[in-house]
């Protein structure tokens, strides 16, 4: 049970760090990088310690990680560049 409350402390520390970063003057790219890294670390900690993925069969771990993380990243990377094109189009042709 001690592990769970240590995990709780770590998660709160990460959340506090993210809130601090939100108010600090950090370059946008570094800010986004830090936030994404902290988010994925928090998600991994919850999965590993609270959901016990750390002690599950590697098949379950692979299914969850590949199924969720990789698919999510592919999903986003496939559509995000298309969304960015709107700004190029507006620059070229105007908003109407």
């Amino acid at each position: 049970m001690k592990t769970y409350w240590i995990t709780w402390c770590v998660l709160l520390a990460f959340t506090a760090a993210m809130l601090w970063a939100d108010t600090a003057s950090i370059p946008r790219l570094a800010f986004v990088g830090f936030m994404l890294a902290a988010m994925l670390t928090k998600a991994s900690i919850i999965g590993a310690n609270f959901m016990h993925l750390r002690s599950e069969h590697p098949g379950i771990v692979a299914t969850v990680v590949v199924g969720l993380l990789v698919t999510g990243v592919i999903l986003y990377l496939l559509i995000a560049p298309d969304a960015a094109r709107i700004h190029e189009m507006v620059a070229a042709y105007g908003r109407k």
Partner: protein
Amino acid sequence: MTTTTIDRWAGGACPFEAGWRKVMMWWFIVTDGLLFAGFLAAYGYGRILAFHWPDTAEVFSLKYIAAMTFVLITSSATMASAVDASRRGDRRQALRFVGLTAIGGAAFLGMQAYEWRHLIAEGARLSRNPWGDAAFGSYFFLLTGFHGSHVLTGVIVLLTTAVRTAKGLTSADGVEMAGLYWHFVDLVWVFIFTLFYLL
């Protein structure tokens, strides 16, 4: 034949060395997680597409959202403790921690209802809002509403688990399944909190 199948799904002979309930719960979590991934990807698309996305620090009180996050993380820790107590056969402590988790979930829902009420009073709607891009309101209500419906479901599951634990009807596996669902709800909030409120 039936016995063989049940034996295999009891977890002893793989494929994942876990019982059928746990495997099915993980399958559910992955598919439900993909639904959230789709919503978040759509939000990312809309966010890039927007010409004037509102500054979330001006729209929301981040201290309030941080308090909501604190409540949810704490409820996850109490849920993990409930699973642990249940595994040890300590029914009384398991019941206490499940009850605390349900209270945490209900508190989160109350806080979210207050947040919604406040934003609606300020003019936020699905199709418009006073702060910027029109899609902001629809993404906000869609993401937090869908997550909130999961929290509500989780609270109902927790209350059912608490009653069944009190009566001695729920096995340690049953508490663990409720726990997996609850942690998933917490996990999704980590993404919404970062991607919607902070970035």
